Protein backbone atom coordinates (compact mmCIF):
# COMPACT_ATOMS: atom_id res chain seq x y z
CA UNK A 1 0.00 0.00 0.00
CA UNK A 2 2.81 2.42 0.78
CA UNK A 3 3.95 2.22 -2.80
CA UNK A 4 0.44 3.01 -3.97
CA UNK A 5 0.32 6.23 -2.00
CA UNK A 6 3.67 7.35 -3.23
CA UNK A 7 2.57 6.74 -6.79
CA UNK A 8 -0.59 8.72 -6.15
CA UNK A 9 1.28 11.68 -4.77
CA UNK A 10 3.70 11.53 -7.69
CA UNK A 11 0.82 11.59 -10.17
CA UNK A 12 -0.72 14.62 -8.50
CA UNK A 13 2.58 16.45 -8.36
CA UNK A 14 3.02 15.92 -12.08
CA UNK A 15 -0.57 16.48 -13.12
CA UNK A 16 -1.76 19.54 -11.29
CA UNK A 17 0.97 22.07 -12.14
CA UNK A 18 0.77 20.71 -15.70
CA UNK A 19 -2.81 21.85 -15.83
CA UNK A 20 -1.96 25.23 -14.45
CA UNK A 21 1.01 25.74 -16.75
CA UNK A 22 -0.93 24.87 -19.86
CA UNK A 23 -3.53 27.58 -19.52
CA UNK A 24 -3.48 30.67 -21.63
CA UNK A 25 -3.52 34.14 -20.18
CA UNK A 26 -7.08 35.33 -20.30
CA UNK A 27 -6.52 39.03 -20.66
CA UNK A 28 -5.05 38.76 -24.13
CA UNK A 29 -7.72 36.60 -25.77
CA UNK A 30 -9.24 39.35 -27.91
CA UNK A 31 -5.76 40.39 -29.10
CA UNK A 32 -4.80 36.77 -29.67
CA UNK A 33 -7.89 36.20 -31.84
CA UNK A 34 -7.06 39.23 -33.98
CA UNK A 35 -3.39 38.24 -34.22
CA UNK A 36 -4.19 34.77 -35.49
CA UNK A 37 -7.14 36.00 -37.60
CA UNK A 38 -9.28 33.23 -36.23
CA UNK A 39 -11.90 32.81 -33.54
CA UNK A 40 -11.92 29.35 -31.99
CA UNK A 41 -15.32 28.51 -30.55
CA UNK A 42 -16.56 25.51 -28.63
CA UNK A 43 -20.03 24.37 -29.74
CA UNK A 44 -22.21 21.30 -29.28
CA UNK A 45 -22.61 18.88 -32.18
CA UNK A 46 -25.57 16.95 -30.80
CA UNK A 47 -28.06 19.54 -29.64
CA UNK A 48 -30.51 20.63 -32.33
CA UNK A 49 -31.30 23.36 -33.10
CA UNK A 50 -28.39 25.02 -31.25
CA UNK A 51 -25.42 23.08 -32.50
CA UNK A 52 -25.78 19.90 -34.54
CA UNK A 53 -24.70 18.15 -37.72
CA UNK A 54 -27.38 18.31 -40.40
CA UNK A 55 -28.22 15.69 -43.06
CA UNK A 56 -25.56 17.18 -45.35
CA UNK A 57 -23.00 16.56 -42.59
CA UNK A 58 -22.61 20.31 -42.01
CA UNK A 59 -22.34 21.86 -38.58
CA UNK A 60 -25.32 24.19 -38.19
CA UNK A 61 -27.53 25.74 -35.52
CA UNK A 62 -28.45 28.89 -33.65
CA UNK A 63 -25.29 28.88 -31.50
CA UNK A 64 -23.20 28.22 -34.59
CA UNK A 65 -24.76 31.14 -36.48
CA UNK A 66 -24.27 33.50 -33.54
CA UNK A 67 -20.59 32.56 -33.37
CA UNK A 68 -20.28 33.23 -37.10
CA UNK A 69 -21.75 36.70 -36.52
CA UNK A 70 -19.27 37.33 -33.70
CA UNK A 71 -16.40 36.30 -35.98
CA UNK A 72 -17.75 38.55 -38.73
CA UNK A 73 -17.85 41.49 -36.32
CA UNK A 74 -14.25 40.71 -35.34
CA UNK A 75 -13.26 40.44 -39.00
CA UNK A 76 -11.72 37.02 -38.52
CA UNK A 77 -12.31 33.44 -39.61
CA UNK A 78 -13.96 30.96 -37.33
CA UNK A 79 -13.01 27.46 -36.26
CA UNK A 80 -15.49 25.27 -34.43
CA UNK A 81 -14.40 22.76 -31.81
CA UNK A 82 -16.76 20.06 -30.66
CA UNK A 83 -17.45 20.20 -26.95
CA UNK A 84 -19.35 17.85 -24.68
CA UNK A 85 -20.39 18.29 -21.09
CA UNK A 86 -17.16 16.88 -19.59
CA UNK A 87 -14.93 18.85 -22.00
CA UNK A 88 -16.59 22.25 -22.39
CA UNK A 89 -14.98 23.82 -19.32
CA UNK A 90 -11.52 22.21 -19.57
CA UNK A 91 -11.25 23.20 -23.26
CA UNK A 92 -12.21 26.77 -22.42
CA UNK A 93 -10.14 27.16 -19.27
CA UNK A 94 -7.04 25.58 -20.80
CA UNK A 95 -7.15 28.02 -23.71
CA UNK A 96 -8.05 25.55 -26.46
CA UNK A 97 -11.15 27.54 -27.33
CA UNK A 98 -11.69 31.28 -26.97
CA UNK A 99 -15.33 31.03 -25.99
CA UNK A 100 -17.96 28.39 -25.60
CA UNK A 101 -21.42 28.71 -27.16
CA UNK A 102 -22.85 25.38 -26.12
CA UNK A 103 -26.48 25.93 -25.07
CA UNK A 104 -25.33 26.56 -21.50
CA UNK A 105 -27.77 27.78 -18.89
CA UNK A 106 -26.34 30.66 -16.89
CA UNK A 107 -26.50 29.94 -13.15
CA UNK A 108 -24.89 31.69 -10.22
CA UNK A 109 -23.21 28.47 -9.14
CA UNK A 110 -21.60 28.04 -12.56
CA UNK A 111 -20.22 31.59 -12.42
CA UNK A 112 -17.68 30.22 -9.98
CA UNK A 113 -15.95 28.46 -12.86
CA UNK A 114 -16.44 30.74 -15.89
CA UNK A 115 -17.92 34.08 -16.94
CA UNK A 116 -21.05 34.41 -19.05
CA UNK A 117 -22.27 36.85 -21.69
CA UNK A 118 -25.65 38.52 -21.35
CA UNK A 119 -28.56 36.16 -21.99
CA UNK A 120 -28.71 35.44 -25.71
CA UNK A 121 -31.64 33.07 -25.57
CA UNK A 122 -34.25 32.28 -22.95
CA UNK A 123 -35.44 28.72 -22.99
CA UNK A 124 -38.51 27.34 -21.31
CA UNK A 125 -38.66 23.87 -19.87
CA UNK A 126 -41.28 21.52 -21.28
CA UNK A 127 -42.35 17.88 -21.27
CA UNK A 128 -42.14 15.54 -24.23
CA UNK A 129 -44.18 12.32 -24.30
CA UNK A 130 -45.41 9.75 -26.80
CA UNK A 131 -48.62 10.81 -28.55
CA UNK A 132 -50.62 8.00 -26.95
CA UNK A 133 -49.28 8.74 -23.47
CA UNK A 134 -51.77 9.43 -20.64
CA UNK A 135 -49.45 12.23 -19.45
CA UNK A 136 -50.98 15.59 -20.35
CA UNK A 137 -49.26 17.92 -17.88
CA UNK A 138 -46.82 18.11 -14.97
CA UNK A 139 -49.56 16.92 -12.61
CA UNK A 140 -49.77 13.52 -14.33
CA UNK A 141 -46.17 12.59 -13.58
CA UNK A 142 -46.70 10.89 -10.21
CA UNK A 143 -45.12 7.45 -10.31
CA UNK A 144 -43.77 8.03 -13.84
CA UNK A 145 -40.16 7.97 -14.94
CA UNK A 146 -38.89 11.18 -16.51
CA UNK A 147 -35.62 11.28 -18.43
CA UNK A 148 -33.48 14.41 -18.24
CA UNK A 149 -29.91 15.49 -18.87
CA UNK A 150 -27.85 15.18 -15.68
CA UNK A 151 -26.46 18.14 -13.76
CA UNK A 152 -28.90 20.58 -15.32
CA UNK A 153 -31.26 23.14 -13.91
CA UNK A 154 -33.93 21.11 -15.72
CA UNK A 155 -33.25 18.15 -13.42
CA UNK A 156 -33.63 20.25 -10.28
CA UNK A 157 -36.74 22.06 -11.51
CA UNK A 158 -38.44 18.79 -12.26
CA UNK A 159 -37.58 17.29 -8.89
CA UNK A 160 -39.15 20.36 -7.30
CA UNK A 161 -42.27 20.61 -9.49
CA UNK A 162 -43.06 16.91 -9.76
CA UNK A 163 -41.85 15.44 -6.46
CA UNK A 164 -43.67 12.15 -7.01
CA UNK A 165 -42.03 11.46 -10.36
CA UNK A 166 -38.89 9.36 -10.69
CA UNK A 167 -36.24 11.59 -12.22
CA UNK A 168 -33.91 9.49 -14.36
CA UNK A 169 -30.86 11.56 -15.30
CA UNK A 170 -28.73 10.67 -18.33
CA UNK A 171 -25.30 11.87 -19.28
CA UNK A 172 -26.52 13.73 -22.35
CA UNK A 173 -29.67 14.83 -24.14
CA UNK A 174 -29.41 12.19 -26.84
CA UNK A 175 -29.35 9.31 -24.34
CA UNK A 176 -32.32 10.76 -22.50
CA UNK A 177 -34.17 11.08 -25.81
CA UNK A 178 -33.26 7.47 -26.67
CA UNK A 179 -34.62 6.38 -23.27
CA UNK A 180 -37.99 7.96 -24.09
CA UNK A 181 -38.10 6.40 -27.56
CA UNK A 182 -37.17 2.97 -26.22
CA UNK A 183 -39.80 3.14 -23.52
CA UNK A 184 -37.25 3.32 -20.71
CA UNK A 185 -38.85 6.57 -19.59
CA UNK A 186 -42.45 7.80 -19.74
CA UNK A 187 -41.48 11.38 -20.49
CA UNK A 188 -38.49 13.54 -21.37
CA UNK A 189 -38.03 17.01 -19.97
CA UNK A 190 -35.81 19.59 -21.57
CA UNK A 191 -35.61 22.97 -23.20
CA UNK A 192 -38.73 23.48 -25.32
CA UNK A 193 -36.85 24.28 -28.52
CA UNK A 194 -34.40 21.39 -28.10
CA UNK A 195 -37.34 18.99 -27.64
CA UNK A 196 -38.94 20.40 -30.79
CA UNK A 197 -35.62 19.89 -32.55
CA UNK A 198 -35.72 16.21 -31.61
CA UNK A 199 -39.28 15.51 -32.74
CA UNK A 200 -38.93 17.27 -36.06
CA UNK A 201 -37.40 14.09 -37.48
CA UNK A 202 -39.28 11.57 -35.34
CA UNK A 203 -43.07 11.47 -35.44
CA UNK A 204 -45.15 9.93 -32.67
CA UNK A 205 -44.14 12.31 -29.88
CA UNK A 206 -45.47 15.67 -28.77
CA UNK A 207 -44.87 18.38 -26.21
CA UNK A 208 -47.59 18.56 -23.55
CA UNK A 209 -48.68 20.95 -20.83
CA UNK A 210 -47.44 24.43 -19.99
CA UNK A 211 -43.87 25.48 -20.25
CA UNK A 212 -42.31 25.84 -16.82
CA UNK A 213 -39.14 27.55 -15.54
CA UNK A 214 -36.87 29.83 -17.54
CA UNK A 215 -33.43 28.85 -18.80
CA UNK A 216 -31.24 31.87 -19.59
CA UNK A 217 -28.49 30.77 -22.00
CA UNK A 218 -25.12 32.52 -21.94
CA UNK A 219 -21.89 32.27 -23.93
CA UNK A 220 -19.00 31.19 -21.71
CA UNK A 221 -15.62 32.91 -21.28
CA UNK A 222 -12.58 32.40 -19.10
CA UNK A 223 -12.67 34.31 -15.85
CA UNK A 224 -11.28 37.79 -16.27
CA UNK A 225 -11.60 37.72 -20.06
CA UNK A 226 -13.56 40.95 -19.97
CA UNK A 227 -12.49 42.47 -23.30
CA UNK A 228 -13.84 39.53 -25.26
CA UNK A 229 -16.97 39.30 -23.13
CA UNK A 230 -17.72 43.01 -23.56
CA UNK A 231 -17.17 42.69 -27.29
CA UNK A 232 -19.56 39.73 -27.56
CA UNK A 233 -22.18 41.48 -25.42
CA UNK A 234 -21.93 44.41 -27.84
CA UNK A 235 -22.30 42.13 -30.86
CA UNK A 236 -25.41 40.49 -29.38
CA UNK A 237 -27.00 43.91 -28.84
CA UNK A 238 -26.06 45.04 -32.36
CA UNK A 239 -27.61 41.86 -33.77
CA UNK A 240 -30.82 42.63 -31.92
CA UNK A 241 -30.85 46.26 -33.07
CA UNK A 242 -30.20 45.35 -36.72
CA UNK A 243 -32.91 42.70 -36.82
CA UNK A 244 -30.38 40.00 -37.68
CA UNK A 245 -31.02 38.30 -34.34
CA UNK A 246 -34.74 38.03 -35.12
CA UNK A 247 -33.89 36.60 -38.55
CA UNK A 248 -31.65 33.89 -37.09
CA UNK A 249 -34.16 33.19 -34.34
CA UNK A 250 -36.93 32.68 -36.90
CA UNK A 251 -34.68 30.40 -38.93
CA UNK A 252 -34.04 28.06 -36.03
CA UNK A 253 -37.16 28.37 -33.88
CA UNK A 254 -39.79 29.31 -36.51
CA UNK A 255 -41.22 32.02 -34.24
CA UNK A 256 -40.31 35.55 -33.24
CA UNK A 257 -38.14 35.87 -30.13
CA UNK A 258 -40.32 36.34 -27.05
CA UNK A 259 -37.57 37.66 -24.78
CA UNK A 260 -35.54 40.61 -26.10
CA UNK A 261 -31.79 40.89 -25.70
CA UNK A 262 -31.04 43.40 -22.96
CA UNK A 263 -29.87 46.66 -24.47
CA UNK A 264 -27.29 49.01 -23.03
CA UNK A 265 -27.34 52.67 -24.12
CA UNK A 266 -24.36 53.60 -26.27
CA UNK A 267 -23.67 56.41 -23.78
Amino acid at each position, binding site marked *: *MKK*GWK*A*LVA*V*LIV*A*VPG*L*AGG*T*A*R*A*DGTLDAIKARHKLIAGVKYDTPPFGFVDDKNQLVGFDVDLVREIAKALGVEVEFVKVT*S*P*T*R*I*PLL*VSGNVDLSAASMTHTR*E*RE*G*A*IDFSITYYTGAQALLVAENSPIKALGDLAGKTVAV*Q*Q*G*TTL*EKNLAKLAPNATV*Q*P*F*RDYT*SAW*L*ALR*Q*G*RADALTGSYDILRGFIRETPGFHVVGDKFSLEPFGIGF*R*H*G*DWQLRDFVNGVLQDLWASGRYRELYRTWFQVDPDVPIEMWPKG
Partner: protein
Amino acid sequence: MSYVFDWGVLWRYREALLSGLGLTLALSLLGLAGAMAVGLVAGAAQAGERRLPRLAAAGYVELARNVPLLVHMYFWYFGLTALRLPAFWCGVLGLSLYSGAYVAEIVRAGIQSVPAGQRAAALACGLSPAQAVRFVIYPQALRIVAPSLAGLFSQLVKDSSLASVISVGELTFVAGEIEGDTFRAFEAYIGVTVLYLMIITVISHVALRGFRGGIVDPAMRY
Protein backbone atom coordinates in the same frame (compact mmCIF):
# COMPACT_ATOMS: atom_id res chain seq x y z
CA MET B 1 -3.88 31.69 -14.96
CA SER B 2 -7.45 32.81 -14.72
CA TYR B 3 -8.95 29.61 -13.38
CA VAL B 4 -9.02 29.21 -9.62
CA PHE B 5 -9.43 25.66 -8.39
CA ASP B 6 -12.15 25.09 -5.85
CA TRP B 7 -11.55 21.70 -4.30
CA GLY B 8 -14.23 22.42 -1.71
CA VAL B 9 -16.72 21.32 -4.33
CA LEU B 10 -15.74 17.71 -3.66
CA TRP B 11 -16.54 18.14 -0.01
CA ARG B 12 -19.88 19.78 -0.77
CA TYR B 13 -20.77 16.78 -2.95
CA ARG B 14 -19.36 14.21 -0.52
CA GLU B 15 -22.68 12.37 -0.14
CA ALA B 16 -23.08 11.98 -3.90
CA LEU B 17 -19.45 10.87 -4.22
CA LEU B 18 -19.83 8.33 -1.44
CA SER B 19 -22.96 6.85 -2.96
CA GLY B 20 -21.18 6.78 -6.34
CA LEU B 21 -18.24 5.02 -4.73
CA GLY B 22 -20.60 2.47 -3.21
CA LEU B 23 -22.25 1.80 -6.55
CA THR B 24 -18.88 1.49 -8.30
CA LEU B 25 -17.80 -1.08 -5.71
CA ALA B 26 -21.12 -2.96 -5.91
CA LEU B 27 -20.99 -3.00 -9.72
CA SER B 28 -17.38 -4.17 -9.70
CA LEU B 29 -17.85 -6.90 -7.10
CA LEU B 30 -21.03 -8.27 -8.65
CA GLY B 31 -19.45 -7.94 -12.08
CA LEU B 32 -16.42 -9.84 -10.82
CA ALA B 33 -18.59 -12.58 -9.33
CA GLY B 34 -20.53 -12.87 -12.57
CA ALA B 35 -17.42 -12.79 -14.72
CA MET B 36 -15.74 -15.48 -12.59
CA ALA B 37 -18.81 -17.69 -12.73
CA VAL B 38 -19.17 -17.35 -16.48
CA GLY B 39 -15.43 -17.48 -17.07
CA LEU B 40 -14.73 -20.57 -14.99
CA VAL B 41 -17.42 -22.53 -16.82
CA ALA B 42 -16.56 -21.22 -20.29
CA GLY B 43 -12.82 -21.55 -19.69
CA ALA B 44 -13.19 -25.14 -18.47
CA ALA B 45 -15.41 -25.94 -21.45
CA GLN B 46 -12.83 -24.50 -23.81
CA ALA B 47 -10.04 -26.51 -22.24
CA GLY B 48 -12.21 -29.64 -22.11
CA GLU B 49 -12.45 -32.42 -24.61
CA ARG B 50 -16.13 -32.36 -25.46
CA ARG B 51 -16.75 -30.73 -28.78
CA LEU B 52 -20.10 -29.01 -28.33
CA PRO B 53 -19.32 -27.17 -25.07
CA ARG B 54 -15.93 -26.24 -26.48
CA LEU B 55 -17.44 -24.69 -29.60
CA ALA B 56 -20.19 -22.96 -27.63
CA ALA B 57 -17.65 -21.49 -25.21
CA ALA B 58 -15.36 -20.40 -28.04
CA GLY B 59 -18.32 -18.74 -29.78
CA TYR B 60 -19.27 -16.89 -26.61
CA VAL B 61 -15.72 -15.72 -25.98
CA GLU B 62 -15.32 -14.39 -29.51
CA LEU B 63 -18.68 -12.66 -29.49
CA ALA B 64 -18.44 -11.09 -26.03
CA ARG B 65 -14.81 -10.02 -26.38
CA ASN B 66 -15.10 -8.52 -29.84
CA VAL B 67 -18.05 -6.28 -29.02
CA PRO B 68 -17.20 -3.02 -27.23
CA LEU B 69 -18.32 -2.86 -23.62
CA LEU B 70 -20.30 0.27 -24.45
CA VAL B 71 -22.42 -1.81 -26.81
CA HIS B 72 -22.91 -4.48 -24.11
CA MET B 73 -24.29 -1.77 -21.85
CA TYR B 74 -26.59 -0.32 -24.51
CA PHE B 75 -27.71 -3.80 -25.54
CA TRP B 76 -29.01 -4.75 -22.11
CA TYR B 77 -30.43 -1.36 -21.27
CA PHE B 78 -31.80 0.01 -24.53
CA GLY B 79 -31.82 -3.08 -26.73
CA LEU B 80 -33.71 -5.38 -24.38
CA THR B 81 -36.02 -2.73 -23.00
CA ALA B 82 -38.85 -5.27 -22.95
CA LEU B 83 -37.11 -7.14 -20.10
CA ARG B 84 -37.36 -3.99 -17.97
CA LEU B 85 -34.12 -4.84 -16.17
CA PRO B 86 -33.06 -2.04 -13.81
CA ALA B 87 -30.10 -0.04 -15.11
CA PHE B 88 -27.84 -1.33 -12.34
CA TRP B 89 -28.41 -4.96 -13.29
CA CYS B 90 -27.93 -4.17 -16.95
CA GLY B 91 -24.55 -2.82 -15.92
CA VAL B 92 -23.74 -5.94 -13.91
CA LEU B 93 -24.80 -8.17 -16.82
CA GLY B 94 -22.80 -6.18 -19.33
CA LEU B 95 -19.69 -6.25 -17.15
CA SER B 96 -20.08 -9.95 -16.28
CA LEU B 97 -20.51 -11.15 -19.85
CA TYR B 98 -17.82 -8.88 -21.25
CA SER B 99 -15.20 -9.60 -18.60
CA GLY B 100 -16.34 -13.24 -18.36
CA ALA B 101 -14.90 -13.80 -21.82
CA TYR B 102 -11.50 -12.55 -20.67
CA VAL B 103 -11.70 -14.68 -17.52
CA ALA B 104 -12.53 -17.68 -19.73
CA GLU B 105 -9.43 -17.12 -21.84
CA ILE B 106 -7.24 -16.77 -18.75
CA VAL B 107 -8.76 -19.86 -17.14
CA ARG B 108 -8.37 -21.87 -20.34
CA ALA B 109 -4.71 -20.87 -20.56
CA GLY B 110 -4.26 -21.74 -16.88
CA ILE B 111 -5.82 -25.19 -17.21
CA GLN B 112 -3.84 -25.96 -20.33
CA SER B 113 -0.64 -24.94 -18.57
CA VAL B 114 -1.12 -27.73 -15.98
CA PRO B 115 0.71 -30.77 -17.35
CA ALA B 116 -1.61 -33.55 -18.56
CA GLY B 117 0.17 -36.00 -16.28
CA GLN B 118 -1.33 -34.24 -13.24
CA ARG B 119 -4.84 -35.21 -14.26
CA ALA B 120 -3.81 -38.73 -15.15
CA ALA B 121 -2.06 -39.09 -11.78
CA ALA B 122 -5.10 -37.73 -9.91
CA LEU B 123 -7.39 -40.20 -11.66
CA ALA B 124 -4.93 -43.02 -10.97
CA CYS B 125 -5.05 -42.11 -7.27
CA GLY B 126 -8.79 -42.80 -7.31
CA LEU B 127 -10.12 -39.25 -7.58
CA SER B 128 -13.22 -38.76 -9.72
CA PRO B 129 -12.81 -36.48 -12.78
CA ALA B 130 -14.64 -33.68 -10.89
CA GLN B 131 -12.39 -34.13 -7.88
CA ALA B 132 -9.34 -34.07 -10.11
CA VAL B 133 -10.43 -30.71 -11.44
CA ARG B 134 -11.38 -29.35 -8.03
CA PHE B 135 -8.37 -30.53 -6.02
CA VAL B 136 -5.57 -30.96 -8.52
CA ILE B 137 -6.02 -28.93 -11.67
CA TYR B 138 -7.82 -25.76 -10.49
CA PRO B 139 -5.52 -25.05 -7.53
CA GLN B 140 -2.48 -25.16 -9.77
CA ALA B 141 -4.14 -23.35 -12.66
CA LEU B 142 -5.51 -20.56 -10.44
CA ARG B 143 -2.13 -20.02 -8.86
CA ILE B 144 -0.58 -19.59 -12.27
CA VAL B 145 -3.23 -17.17 -13.50
CA ALA B 146 -3.66 -15.21 -10.23
CA PRO B 147 -1.75 -12.14 -11.43
CA SER B 148 -3.71 -12.04 -14.68
CA LEU B 149 -7.01 -12.33 -12.83
CA ALA B 150 -6.03 -9.59 -10.40
CA GLY B 151 -5.10 -7.39 -13.34
CA LEU B 152 -8.39 -8.17 -14.99
CA PHE B 153 -10.26 -7.19 -11.89
CA SER B 154 -8.69 -3.76 -11.72
CA GLN B 155 -9.62 -3.45 -15.39
CA LEU B 156 -13.17 -4.37 -14.45
CA VAL B 157 -13.37 -1.61 -11.84
CA LYS B 158 -12.36 0.92 -14.48
CA ASP B 159 -14.76 -0.62 -16.98
CA SER B 160 -17.62 -0.14 -14.53
CA SER B 161 -17.41 3.58 -15.34
CA LEU B 162 -19.14 2.83 -18.64
CA ALA B 163 -22.32 2.00 -16.74
CA SER B 164 -22.67 5.77 -16.44
CA VAL B 165 -24.00 5.85 -20.01
CA ILE B 166 -27.05 3.89 -18.95
CA SER B 167 -27.65 6.22 -16.00
CA VAL B 168 -26.20 4.07 -13.23
CA GLY B 169 -25.17 6.61 -10.59
CA GLU B 170 -21.63 5.34 -10.08
CA LEU B 171 -18.51 7.49 -9.67
CA THR B 172 -18.12 8.69 -13.25
CA PHE B 173 -21.81 9.52 -13.39
CA VAL B 174 -21.51 11.54 -10.18
CA ALA B 175 -18.56 13.43 -11.68
CA GLY B 176 -20.84 14.39 -14.58
CA GLU B 177 -23.48 15.51 -12.12
CA ILE B 178 -21.00 17.73 -10.26
CA GLU B 179 -19.66 19.12 -13.52
CA GLY B 180 -23.15 19.95 -14.69
CA ASP B 181 -24.14 21.70 -11.48
CA THR B 182 -20.98 23.67 -10.91
CA PHE B 183 -18.99 23.56 -14.19
CA ARG B 184 -16.07 22.38 -12.02
CA ALA B 185 -14.95 19.73 -14.50
CA PHE B 186 -11.31 19.60 -13.38
CA GLU B 187 -12.13 19.18 -9.72
CA ALA B 188 -14.88 16.63 -10.36
CA TYR B 189 -12.94 14.40 -12.75
CA ILE B 190 -9.60 14.66 -10.93
CA GLY B 191 -11.47 13.89 -7.71
CA VAL B 192 -13.03 10.70 -9.03
CA THR B 193 -9.75 9.73 -10.70
CA VAL B 194 -8.07 9.80 -7.30
CA LEU B 195 -10.91 7.70 -5.88
CA TYR B 196 -10.53 5.17 -8.71
CA LEU B 197 -6.78 5.08 -8.12
CA MET B 198 -7.32 4.36 -4.44
CA ILE B 199 -9.89 1.62 -4.88
CA ILE B 200 -7.98 -0.08 -7.66
CA THR B 201 -4.72 0.02 -5.73
CA VAL B 202 -6.41 -1.59 -2.74
CA ILE B 203 -8.46 -4.03 -4.78
CA SER B 204 -5.65 -5.29 -6.98
CA HIS B 205 -3.55 -6.02 -3.90
CA VAL B 206 -6.40 -7.75 -2.13
CA ALA B 207 -7.38 -9.65 -5.27
CA LEU B 208 -3.84 -10.85 -5.88
CA ARG B 209 -3.56 -12.03 -2.30
CA GLY B 210 -7.03 -13.59 -2.49
CA PHE B 211 -6.37 -15.60 -5.61
CA ARG B 212 -2.96 -16.69 -4.33
CA GLY B 213 -3.93 -17.40 -0.75
CA GLY B 214 -7.55 -17.48 0.30
CA ILE B 215 -8.90 -19.34 -2.67
CA VAL B 216 -6.04 -21.62 -3.58
CA ASP B 217 -4.29 -22.63 -0.40
CA PRO B 218 -7.12 -24.37 1.49
CA ALA B 219 -7.47 -26.67 -1.49
CA MET B 220 -3.73 -27.21 -1.57
CA ARG B 221 -3.87 -28.71 1.89
CA TYR B 222 -5.48 -31.83 0.51
